[in-house]
């Protein structure tokens, strides 16, 4: 699922290594959890199937970008050398298709590449400089050596008693309440840690 600012009642758990996280997520899924998201310092293609992402529209967008780029660059050349400013240059044909192919190719690649690059940030809604998970204590290690999983509070099976225990059972170092509200996350976290 697409991670967004988490609703009240969501939980996040920190794991020590990738394999533990993978196992945890798989078993959560097996127990019927659906609102799951991971945070890891490296890509985890193993979980692609488990997390059930929607098929990406990016490749289609990139294709369109390429076609548009090619069309535009051929048009520019045709407009310049055939329509607007035709010249007799060395007796060569005015509409020199073979010559125009090269800039057309470059335009195609450029168009596609620009779409791929900016398209990614668009679908990821980046840049986004604040996100509730950033408030999790110790979350900064999610880009270094720690692996987090979050379970949405709106998830049918999510429950204040059940979920944290399940997560702990799966080997989480710790479990914290993940809350969109500025303070709740930290407070909740402390509360839970204390309860442990």
């Amino acid at each position, binding site marked *: 699922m697409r991670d967004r600012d988490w609703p009240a009642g969501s939980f996040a758990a920190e794991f020590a290594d990738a394999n533990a996280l993978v196992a945890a997520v798989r078993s959560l899924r097996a127990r019927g959890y659906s609102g799951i998201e991971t945070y890891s310092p*490296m890509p985890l293609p193993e979980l692609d199937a488990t997390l059930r992402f929607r098929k990406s529209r990016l490749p289609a967008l990139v294709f369109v970008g390429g076609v548009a780029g090619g069309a535009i660059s051929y048009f520019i050349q045709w407009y310049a050398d055939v329509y*607007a*400013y035709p010249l007799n240059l060395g007796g060569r044909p005015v509409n020199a298709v073979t010559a125009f192919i*090269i800039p057309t190719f470059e335009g195609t690649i450029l168009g596609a590449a620009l779409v791929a690059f900016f398209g990614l940030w668009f679908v990821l809604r980046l840049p986004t400089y604040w996100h509730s998970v950033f408030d999790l204590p110790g979350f900064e290690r999610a880009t270094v050596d720690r692996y987090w999983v979050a379970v949405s509070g709106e998830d049918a099976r999510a429950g204040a008693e059940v979920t944290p225990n399940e997560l702990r059972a799966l080997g989480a170092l710790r479990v914290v309440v993940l809350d969109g509200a500025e303070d709740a996350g930290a407070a909740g976290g402390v509360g839970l840690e204390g309860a442990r």
Partner: protein
Amino acid sequence: MNDRVLLHGNAGDAALTDSLLAPLWRTPSLWWMLFVVSCAGTVLFVFSIYWTIAKGIGTWGNNIPVAWAFAITDFVWWIGIGHAGTFISAFLLLLNQKWRGSVNRVAEAMTIFALVNAAMFPLLHLGRPWFFYWLAPYPATMGVWPNFKSSLPWDVAAVTTYFTVSLLFWYMGLVPDLASARDRAVSRARKLAYGIFALGWRGSGYQWQRYRIAYVLLAALATPLVISVHSVVSLDFAIAQLPGWHSTIFPPYFVVGAIYSGLAMVLMLLIPLRRAFHFEDVITEAHLDRIAKLMLAMGLMLAYSYAMETFMAWYSGDHFERYTYLFSRPFGPYAVLYWIMTALNVLTPNIFWSRRLRRSTPALFIASFGILIGMWLERFAIIVTSLNRDFLPSSWHFYAPSWVDFGLLAGSIGLFGMLFLLFIRYVPTVALSEVKRLRLELANEAAGEVAGA
């Protein structure tokens, strides 16, 4: 098995991250020394540019018939060097070569800085550089447009595209590592700076998954560019009818030479880098070995190209072709340079048949240096020895460079060095996430083997 290790030691991810980010936080005195030298080179570059623009192209050695010489040689040389980056990162990514992870960042950075240099020479080379933008298709009040039958606008398109895509690819690869740097930085300023460029990356599964798609797409787009850019550059010569330029072998021949010189430059940068910052665990002999093997392959292909163009010149039976390839180059006024070029480019890589030499950093470093010189000389041979003796003997004339020509070449190397030093000082030089991923996979492989045993 042991000699194919891509990652030594078993430090935890945290330790690994810190060791790879270390150059960002501490600066060895060596860095300062090199930085001062390269800044001096940059000053020379700027002064030579000023001199050229203030006085005119006449301050160079160029003449009629040799209207292109040093500057275009430098241009082609730098563009060529700029090929290895995308080759390593994009090509090898598609081929799922795991070892690329430790070296692709450096290679990509090198590409970008080489392109920055390369792009400057054609502009400086213009008789009226202040009108460079006339090569771009824009609705001018004069109502005139560029001529797309000429290969020079192709060149503009190819180089700008290649530069843009390389830059995007490089930056996209950087984002997760910038996030790591953000989260590891101690000073608030650094935290802020890396934070801004990290775009708020948090490494969620969704981000990673989409990111992987986009990254592979970009790689797939960059790969044909690697082939196309130097092919187009070669057309700057091949569409002319000048003997020595007018040849259909040029595009592949140029691409091979480009990757060849690019790999040499990668080695020349990696070897001191891994030494200075103790990256031996991450950039292992296995990496050098693989790059050396690639260079050997490229070198052999280049040797084949040399043989082929000479054979074709003879086989064509054309007097002008034969004169250029069979007399002017091997025995003409620039024969010495031609033979040095041949020796450096054809003989040098053959030392890499030896596994020991493939792993000896001094051998690799010296060989790479020789190959870079050889590839510069190759472009000089193609450009100058073709021009200085063309069709009518009456117009034949010798070409000798001026101090400005040398100033621009040396200065551009200085600028390249300065940019690269700044890069290793402020940007993660190794793709952290990829190395960690590699480490995980290697670990799991090992565990699996253990389990299997």
